[in-house]
C-alpha cells in the first residue's frame, strides 16, 4: 500500500501559451523550485482544453489535472478562458458521476508575470492530489 508520504502523484498541467505557460517560464527564470510532479502540455488557449484530454489523462495514469488560463478579461483570444471555465464546471459534474473527486481537476489563472503564483499553485495542487491518494479507476 502506498503511504501518503511516499506517494508521488502524476499530474498533467494544461497551460495556455500566452499567460500561464509564460508564467511557468517566469517561475523558471526566477529559479523557483517546485515539486516535479506536473508535466506541462502547452496549448494555445485554455479554451482548447477538451474534456476528453482530462479523461484521457486520468485513464492513462494521471492522479490529477490542472488547467491554467489567463486571468478573466485578459485572455489573448478574448474569451477562451471563459470557455475553459464553463467546461471546467461541466467537468466537475462529470468527474463526480464517474467517482473521481473533483478536487483532482483544478482550474486556476496565472498571468505571464506571476511566476510565484505559478509555483504556489503547483505546490498546492500536488499537495491536494497527494492527500487524495492515487486515483484508482477500477473502484
Amino acid at each position: 500500500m502506498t503511504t501518503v508520504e511516499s506517494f508521488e502523484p502524476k499530474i498533467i498541467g494544461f497551460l495556455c501559451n500566452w499567460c500561464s505557460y509564460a508564467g511557468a517560464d517566469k517561475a523558471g527564470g526566477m529559479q523557483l523550485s517546485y515539486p516535479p510532479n506536473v508535466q506541462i502540455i502547452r496549448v494555445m488557449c485554455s479554451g482548447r482544453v477538451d474534456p476528453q484530454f482530462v479523461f484521457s489523462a486520468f485513464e492513462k495514469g494521471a492522479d490529477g489535472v490542472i488547467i491554467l488560463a489567463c486571468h478573466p478579461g485578459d485572455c489573448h483570444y478574448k474569451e477562451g478562458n471563459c470557455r475553459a471555465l464553463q467546461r471546467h464546471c461541466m467537468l466537475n459534474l462529470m468527474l463526480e458521476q464517474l467517482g473521481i473527486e473533483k478536487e483532482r481537476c483544478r482550474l486556476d489563472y496565472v498571468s505571464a508575470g506571476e511566476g510565484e503564483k505559478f509555483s504556489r499553485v503547483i505546490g498546492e495542487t500536488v499537495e491536494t492530489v497527494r492527500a487524495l491518494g492515487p486515483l484508482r479507476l477500477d473502484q
Partner: protein
Amino acid sequence: MKIGVYFCNCGSNIAEKISSAAVAEAASFFPDSPYVTIVDFICSEEGKLQFEDSLKAEQPDRVVVAACSPRDHEATFRSCLTNAGMNPYLMQVVNIREQIAWVTEHPGVATEKAIAAIRGAVCRVRLQQPLEKKQLEVCPDALVIGAGPAGMKAALSLAEAGRSVVLVERTPFIGGLPVRFEDLFPAMECAPCMLEPLMGDLLHGEHPGKIELMTMAELVEVTGFYGNFIAKIRRKPRHVSLHECIGCGECVEACPATTMNEFNSSASGRKAIDFAFTGVLPNAPFLMEEVCVRAQGVECRACKDACPMGEDVVDLDEESTVVERTIGSIILATGAGLYDASRVAGLGMGVLPDVYDAMQFERMLSSTGPTGGEIVTAAGAVPSSVAIIHCVGSLDEDHNPYCSGICCRYAFKFNHLVTAKLPGASITHYHRELVVPGKEAHMLLRHAAGNSSTTLKRYAAISDLAVTRDDSGTLHVCSRGEVTPVDMVVLCPAVIPAEGTDRLSALLDVSCDSFGFFRELHGRTDAAQSTLKGIYLAGACQEPMDIRSAMLEGMATAGHTLAGLQPGRTIEIEPIAAEVDENGCAGCRLCLSVCPYHAISFNSEQNISHVNAVLCHGCGTCVTACPAGAITGHGFTNEQIMAEIEGVLQ
C-alpha cells in the same frame, strides 16, 4: 519513422540538472527509437550550424528539440529546419530549461521528468504533419467612414503614401463636429482655420485623385475579409453637382421652401436647398427632398433656373445610387455625439428657454451659427450671468458611469469666450469632478479660476442641482438650498457614441463595449484595431476623445493599413489554424458562437461551417466545441495532444 532528438546542454544551465546520457539511454526505448544528438548551445550560431548539418546528414522525418522555452527559440529552430530542407512544422520543442532544470531541486528527479517530457514530445511529433503558410493577394486601399478629424487625417496620410482611399461621410460636409465650433481648447485656436488646411488638402491638395470623397453617403453592405473587402455604399442625392457648383448661393435665394437647420442645432432656419452653414466645405448647397415643394407635388424649378452655371448643376431628378468598391482595410472614424441632457431630470433641458447643451452653445458662439456669434437669450437680451454645469450624465451610474474627459476643458473654453464676449458677466461652474489633463489645458483652468467674475462650485450628485425659472424669466440654479439667479444655463452632457454606431457594428460584425462605443482589440496595446481583423478604429467612435488624440488615431489606423497591406506583397496566413471537415460537419453552428474573431461562416445551402484562415487566430476553441469532432486544429490536433498526454504518463 526516423526521429531525431536534439538535446541542448545550454552550457551548464540544463546539463547540471539533466543527464543527457540518461536521456539518450531512455530514448532507445521510445517509439521509433529516436537518435539523440547533444549540442552545447543550440541557439548559438555554431549550434545552429551543427543542428542544420546534422539534419542534412541524418534526414530525420521528425525532430524534437529539448532546450529552452519554445517562447524563446521555437522560431529559431523552425528556421533551421527550413534551412535543412525540412518542413518547419515537423518539430516539437520540449522546454527542459525554464520548466524543468531551473525549477527542480534534485538532478535525478529533473532527469526523470525530462525523459517523460521528451517521450511525450516524441509520441506527439510522430503525428505532426507538414504545414504550409499560404499566401494571399491583397488590395492595399482603404475605406474610411467619417470625415471628421480622425477620418480626414487617416485618408490624407494614406493618400500621401500613394494609397487610394474611399472616404464616406454621412453629412453633406467634411470636418466633423469641430468644424462647427468657433474656437478650440486648449489654445483657443479658430476651429475652421485649424481644419481648413486639412480640408483643403483633402478636396484640392496634392493627392486629390487618391481620395474619393462621398458626402451624404453611408455603408450598406460589406462582404469579404481583411485584404479583400467589398463594400457597397449608398450615395443619397445631393441634387447639386459638387464638380460644377461654384457656391454662389443664387439657388438658395430663389428657393421658396423653408425648414429648421439641424446643423445649427435647429436654432435657425434654412431653405430646402441651402448650405449646411456658412463657410462649409465642400462649398455647395444640398437639397432636402422632404422639404422641397416638389415633394408636395408642386412644380418648381426655381433653384435650377437661378443657377448661373447652367442646366446641369442642379439635378432635381437625381436618385440615390449604390456603388461598390474593393478595399483591403476599413477605418471607422464615425465620431461621437452628446448625451440627451433632457434625460437628466431637473436641469430644464428642452423645457426652459435659455438652457442649452454644449453643441447648441458652440453654435451660438460660432460666427457661422444662428446668432452670428452673439451670446443672446431667447428674448434677445445680453445675459449678465451664465451657469455652466459639468458632468451632465457623466460619472453617473444612472446615466453614463465614465468621465467624458473633454467636457471640463471645453467648459473652461466657454468661460474664456463668455468673458471675452460679455466682459463683466458672472460665470458659475458647477462641477462634480474637475478633469483637465495635458500640458496645455491647465492654462484654461488657471484663467477661469483667476477670473474675478468666475465661481467654481462642486456638487456631489447631479440630483443636488435643479434649474427653475421664475415669472420674470430669470433662471435659478438651486444647489442644496443655495439659489443662484442666472440668465443662461449651459449643460455639458456626456460624450456618447455617434448615432448609427450600433448599425455599423451589426453590419460589420464589429463588437461594441457596454457603453456602445466600438470595442478595441486591446485597450492598451491595440487600441486602434477593432475586434475584427482589417477594421480599425480612429477617434471618438471608441471613447470620448479630444481632437489631438483623434488625429493621432487617424495616423495610427493609416499606419496599420500601410504596414499590413503593401502593393505587390501578399499576406501570409499562419497554418496554425482550424479547418472544418465538410463530411463530418453536422451543421450545428456551435463553432460560430464560440469563435471570438467571427472567422467561421455557415453555408446554409450545404449545411456546413467554414473557417476563414485569414481571420482564424488558431486558439482552437472551436475545435474543442465541435460536438462532431469535425474541426481540426492544425498544429494542435486531438490526436497529437492525446499522444503527448500518453507519452508523458508512460
